């Protein structure tokens, strides 16, 4: 919207308007963007701490990435290249809609290539390819507080965060090991950020959790429904909660390889083909396509350095284990 008040109903409903016409740049009004940016800056200053912000209504239902969109649209400028992925896929309806909203209102380029994007909005995954200090990853967050697993009261949990009192969470881990022989948490694995705040990394698989540690890029986590933003700035210590003798482990896929590209060092999901047969496939579709074209393509091929730890499977341990496996009880 332009700064001037509309003078008539006709002006508001100008049938000729499309794209940017009639909307403020990047859809959100400037006050909202400023509000989101302020919250984001604060979140970056206090890594892992949940910062409240005035979450706006968005043209899609809460829970479909409204927080992520507000964060992305507040960050985007005309020179940005935007990528949106939904559980590893650029092609899902939701990802496509979000991409189109940004495209039409912010006048930006979009891409499916992880290495070409400056801002990536994602749900439930961190890309397989190593992100750089030129890139920002915006994660959509359904549940902001890791402690909600052990106590439903946000009030009590805020007090716990204030005093770094995470013993309840530790007891939950203890109970999990007692019952299952290991920590039985798949997605949303709780992590300690910079030794201070316990953080819910959003429902990324454990596979992606190690990528949060000492990364070159900025991670912004945004929840629309809960109106909270938190962040992990580059090169922050991020440690998954684990006992000294029960190390954190990522998912492992035994001898399986991607049915499409043959990769054995990527996060695989089991899919059912049209023939009804179950097979494994890369969850990150854009990287899978690269691998299909060039099976030697490494996760850090686009970088000059090649010693970057980016989660499992970056050459250090091809079996996808991190740490020393742990012992049996």
């Amino acid at each position, binding site marked *: 919207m332009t700064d001037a008040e509309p003078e008539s109903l006709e002006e508001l409903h100008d049938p000729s308007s499309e794209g940017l016409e009639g909307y403020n740049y990047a859809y959100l009004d400037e006050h909202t963007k400023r509000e989101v940016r302020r919250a984001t800056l604060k979140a970056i200053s206090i890594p892992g701490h949940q910062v409240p912000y005035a979450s706006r209504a968005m043209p899609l239902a809460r829970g479909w990435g409204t927080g992520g969109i507000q964060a992305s649209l507040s960050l985007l400028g005309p020179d940005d290249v935007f990528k949106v992925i939904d559980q590893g896929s650029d092609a899902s309806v939701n990802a496509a809609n979000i991409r189109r909203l940004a495209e039409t209102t912010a006048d930006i380029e979009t891409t499916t290539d992880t290495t070409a994007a400056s801002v990536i909005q994602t749900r439930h995954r961190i890309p397989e390819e190593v992100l750089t200090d030129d890139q920002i990853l915006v994660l959509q967050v359904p549940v902001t507080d890791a402690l909600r697993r052990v106590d439903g009261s946000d009030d009590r949990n805020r007090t716990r965060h204030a*005093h770094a009192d995470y013993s309840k969470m530790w*007891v939950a881990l203890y109970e999990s090991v007692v019952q299952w022989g290991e920590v039985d948490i798949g997605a949303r694995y709780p992590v300690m950020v910079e030794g201070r705040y316990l953080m819910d990394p959003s429902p990324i698989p454990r596979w992606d959790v190690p990528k949060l540690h000492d990364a070159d890029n900025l991670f912004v986590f945004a929840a629309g429904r809960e109106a909270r933003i938190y962040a992990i700035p580059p090169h922050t210590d991020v440690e998954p909660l684990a006992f000294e003798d029960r190390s954190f482990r990522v998912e492992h896929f035994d001898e399986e390889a991607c049915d499409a590209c043959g990769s054995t060092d990527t996060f695989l999901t089991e899919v059912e083909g049209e023939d009804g047969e179950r097979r494994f496939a890369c969850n990150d579709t854009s990287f899978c396509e690269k691998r299909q074209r060039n099976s030697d393509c490494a996760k850090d091929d686009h970088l000059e350095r090649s010693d970057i730890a980016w989660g499992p499977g970056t050459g250090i341990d091809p079996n996808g284990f991190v740490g020393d496996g742990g012992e049996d*009880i």
Partner: protein
Amino acid sequence: MTFLDADGLTKVYGEGCSACLATTGPEYDRNRCPECDSVVACADVSFEVRDGEVLGIVGESGSGKSSVAEILALDADATAGTATIRGHGDVLDADYQRRREIRDEHLGMVHQHVHDGLNLSFTGGGNVAEKLLSAGWRHYGDIRSRVRGLFEETEVPVDRMDDSAETYSGGMQRRVQIAKAIANDPGLVVLDEPTTGLDVSVQARVLDTFRRLQREQDVATVVVSHDLSVVRLLADRVLVMRQGRIVEAGLTDRVMEDPHHEYTQTLINSII
């Protein structure tokens, strides 16, 4: 050596006014201030407890003994007074963070109501482990063996360690609370009505277990009970409370057999 020095512990529920303390107490036979209607739960309660010593606090319900226990366990704020713990200063004056550290590492509490002391949805072992985890234990194997050892010491069947605490008998739950209370080798343990709600036969064994551990570990203890026989069996010295005030204090056998205060005499004479 003195481990705990409590001085002038006072707890007033309500707005409080200048008349509260002067118009309540045993000589007025009330704890509600006639001026402002505040309740003086306890006032001017002072005592000290040494390492290895057991102090009993007896009184009827409403005497203020549980308020004293809550204050000592850092579960409630005092309106006035100090509680100095050796090496830690006045813990009532400590901020939340330090209170938590002190509660986690230097205090043990056995609650009258199991829900205040245990999380019944956790395993019995998990409840004890919580205390260790709070104190920074991070090695699962070490935690397991410490919890196992504490179960053995408090005579809870070790093979029930991984069952939900909900499935335990009342006596076992009380023992798990004791295991939890002593898990970090605290300097002070506070027991609030340690036998209430238990079968008579179970009461005796819980008391015996606690007394053995208390002597072995030389831990300062405050035991709050309306049951004179519990205090008689555990305590070296005893305070008798009424309407929020201490009316008599002394060696436990002296207070029981040669009570001086009128109220204590009535109390002793009421024992069946």
